[in-house]
């Protein structure tokens, strides 16, 4: 009996809860479709994420259920949804941390593709084109030459902000963005902050002011801090918005 204790895996009596999922169902491309909730029961398994649960529900109970995922590791940003009313990534949400009744809805503020799937990509692209979230430089790059050196702290700072996965949680978590669809949101302001601190970007504060020095930009933010508290990558969004606000206030009166 004692000989093999180290190698055996203790058998647990199943204490798994049965979770009831109320999932928003609607296909906007089907005229007969009415938005409604459907409920599904699923027995919880060890280390089950919401992403795994959704796949099981789709495999065994609702083959037509639409939801997005790619990386299942919190990297691609496709699986964001409202989980019991709060924005979060399905692949990073453990079922064990949820109550036995779970309501799932698509992220608000984005175009609905169907059920839990929304077109965050379209929104992000629009924001990116509007704010021009890429490096603006007059220099023509010589791709054969060595890159300019960058101070490690500076590179780290840029990298920290670059971690945004464009999941859209900060838009779904922001009362301002929900009320005012033109608001560029924390994702947009953070991305411009990232280019503002990048020495390779030659844009001046006056140029940044032209795109975010208004009520749809940094001055529209009302410091509700949903963005900061719901960002699954825990980006320092409040800090970056404050940084842009100070810079834009100074640029505005100069």
């Amino acid at each position, binding site marked *: 009996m004692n000989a093999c204790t180290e190698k055996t895996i203790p058998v647990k009596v199943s204490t798994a809860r049965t979770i009831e999922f109320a999932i928003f169902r609607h296909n906007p491309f089907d005229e007969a479709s009415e938005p409604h909730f459907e409920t599904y029961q699923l027995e919880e398994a060890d280390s089950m994420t919401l992403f795994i649960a959704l796949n099981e529900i789709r495999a065994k109970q609702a083959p037509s259920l639409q939801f997005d995922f790619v990386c299942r590791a919190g990297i691609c940003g496709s699986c964001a949804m*409202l989980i019991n*009313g*709060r*924005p979060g990534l399905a692949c990073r949400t453990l079922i064990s941390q949820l109550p036995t009744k779970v309501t799932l809805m698509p992220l*608000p503020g984005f175009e609905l593709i169907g059920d839990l799937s929304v077109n965050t990509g379209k929104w992000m692209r629009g924001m990116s084109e509007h704010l021009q979230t890429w490096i603006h430089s007059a220099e023509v790059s010589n791709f054969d030459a060595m890159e300019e050196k960058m101070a490690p702290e500076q590179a780290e700072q840029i990298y920290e902000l670059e971690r945004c996965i464009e999941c859209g949680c900060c838009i779904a*978590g922001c*009362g301002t963005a*929900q*009320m*005012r669809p033109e608001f560029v949101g924390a994702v947009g302001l953070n991305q411009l902050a990232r280019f503002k601190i990048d020495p390779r970007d030659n844009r001046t504060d006056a140029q940044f*002011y*032209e795109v975010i*020095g*208004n*009520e749809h*930009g940094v*001055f529209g*933010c*009302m*410091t*509700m*801090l*949903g963005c900061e*508290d*719901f960002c699954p990558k825990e980006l*320092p969004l*409040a*800090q970056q918005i*404050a*940084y842009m*606000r*100070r810079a*834009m*206030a100074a*640029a*505005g*009166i100069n």
Partner: protein
Amino acid sequence: MLFKNPLSSPRGPAVMDMLQSVSGIILALFMWAHMFMVSSILLGNDAMYWVTKMFEGEPIFGKGYPILVSLFALFILSLVVLHAFLAMRKFPATHRQYRTLHNHLGGIRHTDSYLWYVQVFTGFALFFLASVHLYQLIMHPADIGPYASSDRVWTGRMWPLYLMLLFVVELHGGIGLYRVLVKWGWFMGKDPKIGRKRLTIAKWVLTLFFLVLGSLTLAAYMKVGYEHQDSAGERYQPAEYSQLHSASQGEND
């Protein structure tokens, strides 16, 4: 250039955002200072009398000029008007926006978003509550004092307004100061996430302190007013002041 509308210039949003914050900060700090002064009644009628005379400029001019109180109240009212005008832009404007916001707030159960809504709500209430209070002061600047104020609170039935004003303004100003610091990234320390937690605690401690102080103060005025109701309208004579007064009168006799 001369007739260019400043609000339509590209500076507008920056200037308006800064003025909104500056006016809010001055008002909130003034509100706390004001609370300390009003609460002098807790130290007795003479203490409050002395504070009143200070504000009428008696130590400087040798005699009280209530007009100074009027002017100061007028200044505060203009700040309130400026601040309200700017902050009003942030109110939800349409039924649709209110509905979206209510759905949103109901779903996310998020403290700081709730706090913002409390600020909108209390800000709206301040339109009325603050205006009544300030108008009264501007028009009757001399009616401030241990008896005059207490009579107004009790016999003049102003205490319900002051009770509402106390809670509304303390919540609004306290939340406002917290949000304005986070908004501009001031006093956040090295780690802004820890800094924000600290500010939240400081904010609630201060709000609680001023609510308790304010409630005690209002109770004190109500008590003085209640006891003085039969001779309402009579002005307070400070103890040593009346002694001096009668002494000098005695000499003249």
